[in-house]
């Protein structure tokens, strides 16, 4: 059996909310990520979907060690990700890299593209000795489909799609095993989005990368992912293979989310059954007791308020966190 490359267990990240000028009191906790567990297999793409505020970006930040977790564990190739310090942590950082959403703010406007892509070598100087850096950077630019001669240009001279390629080249510089893609194509136009998705697919095959692919666009996630996790208010509510989630969703939230996606085919207009959710997502400061989705769920019963449904195999065997899990096909 293949061992997972990244294994996350009961990960929790709470942000304290403080009030007061001189004596700050903690008046509450934003429960951004609240008990998330999953495994990432080598060479696999795990899609993470959910609406704004569900904690998917916080999850990325914690896995990158940009934020310290409140509790929980993550193992990367037998090493405990959250216990690493100093030189060990720095070495580990090579293995997990991130591609950010906004190609306009994630690149330093005062640095040339060559400096941006080559900056990881400054910190990890043993990966590429000084003499070989220029060639390395040119290779990387070529890999992501940019002209290597443009290494001396500045980010503003590139379009959105090209900037996203620069971000990908930077993430690839240290030859990582895992890349966390946090909404990598959301800021791009449709025609450019397809180019970047193709690039991510090619690179995965070429370098044997594993992706954690975070996005809110369910179509994009489906195209690239082997498995998909659906998040709601800091928890994974359902996780399974792409087929299990899209063809046989069993959690009411997954069903509602899928049914709300507009289908680009006017011939099926009016034939689709859209599950309309009432109201908005509750505040993560004070999430509902029991099942967090119960305030908007049409199946909610007394048990949903008192008992938190476990994420366990239900219906056809994939994991779902609903007391009343039931397969329902919602995508035409």
């Amino acid at each position: 059996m293949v061992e997972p490359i990244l294994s996350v267990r009961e990960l929790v990240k709470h942000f304290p909310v403080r009030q007061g000028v001189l004596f700050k009191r903690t008046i509450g906790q934003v429960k951004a990520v609240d008990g998330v567990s999953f495994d990432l297999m080598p060479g696999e793409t795990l899609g993470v979907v959910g609406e704004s505020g569900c904690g998917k970006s916080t999850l990325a930040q914690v896995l990158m060690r940009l934020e310290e977790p409140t509790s929980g564990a993550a193992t990367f190739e037998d090493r405990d990700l959250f216990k690493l310090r100093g030189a060990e942590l720095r070495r580990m950082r090579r293995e997990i890299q991130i591609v950010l959403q906004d190609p306009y703010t994630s690149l330093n406007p005062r640095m040339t593209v060559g400096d941006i892509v080559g900056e990881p070598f400054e910190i990890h100087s043993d990966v590429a000795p000084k003499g070989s850096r220029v060639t390395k950077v040119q290779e990387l630019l070529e890999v992501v489909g940019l002209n290597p001669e443009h290494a001396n240009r500045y980010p503003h001279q590139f379009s959105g799609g090209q900037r996203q390629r620069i971000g990908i080249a930077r993430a690839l510089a240290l030859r990582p095993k895992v890349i966390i893609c946090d909404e990598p194509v959301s800021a791009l136009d449709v025609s450019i989005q397809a180019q970047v998705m193709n690039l991510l697919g090619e690179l995965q095959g070429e370098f044997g990368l594993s992706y954690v692919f975070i996005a809110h666009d369910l179509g994009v996630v489906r195209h690239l992912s082997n498995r998909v996790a659906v998040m709601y208010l800091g928890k994974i509510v359902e996780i399974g293979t792409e087929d299990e989630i899209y063809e046989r969703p069993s959690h009411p939230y997954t069903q509602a989310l899928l049914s709300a996606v507009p289908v680009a085919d006017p011939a099926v207009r009016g034939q689709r059954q859209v599950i309309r959710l009432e109201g908005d997502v509750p505040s993560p400061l004070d999430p509902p007791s029991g099942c967090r989705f119960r305030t908007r769920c049409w199946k909610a019963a007394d048990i949903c308020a008192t008992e938190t449904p476990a994420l366990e195999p239900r219906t056809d065997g994939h994991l779902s966190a609903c007391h009343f899990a039931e397969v329902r096909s919602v995508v035409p």
Partner: protein
Amino acid sequence: MSTVDDELLLEVDDLHVEFRTSDGVANVLNGVGYSVHAGETLAVLGESGSGKSVTAQTIMGILDTPPGVVTGGAIRYRGEDLLTASPVRRRELRGSEIAMIFQDALSALNPVFTVGFQIEEQLRVRQGLSRKDARARAIELLELVRIPAAARRVKDYPHQFSGGMRQRAMIAMSLALDPDLLIADEPTTALDVTVQAQIMDLLAEIQRERRMGLILITHDLGVVAEVADRIAVMYAGRIVEQADVRELFSSPGHPYTAALMDSLPRLDLKGQTLETIKGLPPSLLDIPPGCPFHPRCKRAEQSCREERPSLHRLGFGRVSACHFAEEVVESRG
């Protein structure tokens, strides 16, 4: 499909707008034309920089001048040319005849006034209502767009609303003076899918009840397929194709439209390489000669590089600006 009334509301005719910038003259609109009837939804589809929002701003008379300058064409609302109308007349029409909602409700609303005040302001200034009557009407409007506990929420500031509620509040504001034509510029782009579904439902329902004309500006092919009656596709400041929504999706008449549809991730092509449109949209400072799409087009021939294709008829109510439009349609049919 909703029944399309015969009454012609808006006609945009050969509209030209340029932006005079320090880098040169950007030809933002190069002869845009479309029309909207009462009760009809026209979707304007295009990527960033294609000119879809500038067209809307010019119709509303809120184009930033400078740098924007209207250099030609006409915009007729019920036969009256807006471009030659006096500023006073334009102000009369704005809000009460043509209203607009924007993508980013947080920056479109004023953060230092309550939501109620911002709705009431236009009622008091334009319709001369008293504070009390305006407040009552504002609460009615918020109820219409299904804001829960409207009587209480009317006193809230925009930051106290969620994203979906802010967009609802903006819809309420745009409906205050009962316009006949509503322009929605990417109304759901900043929202999550479940909220997007709520807002699109609400817009469709209000439109049906009031028989409003709706111009829906978007880049989302899914949203277009769900609500539009007709579609105008824009590229580099021009309409490249206009057709009924079903025809356009089943057999696009312009290579750009066809390529856009092919670049969407599709179920049956999962895991495979997506079709892409090579290259980038042209710079508006330097639009290529001939067909502006030719550097990215798979079909491009010598004639495309030299001669600019004009919009020509392609069956009933359908136009395309491609020399090979008939072949494009047939290759899909």
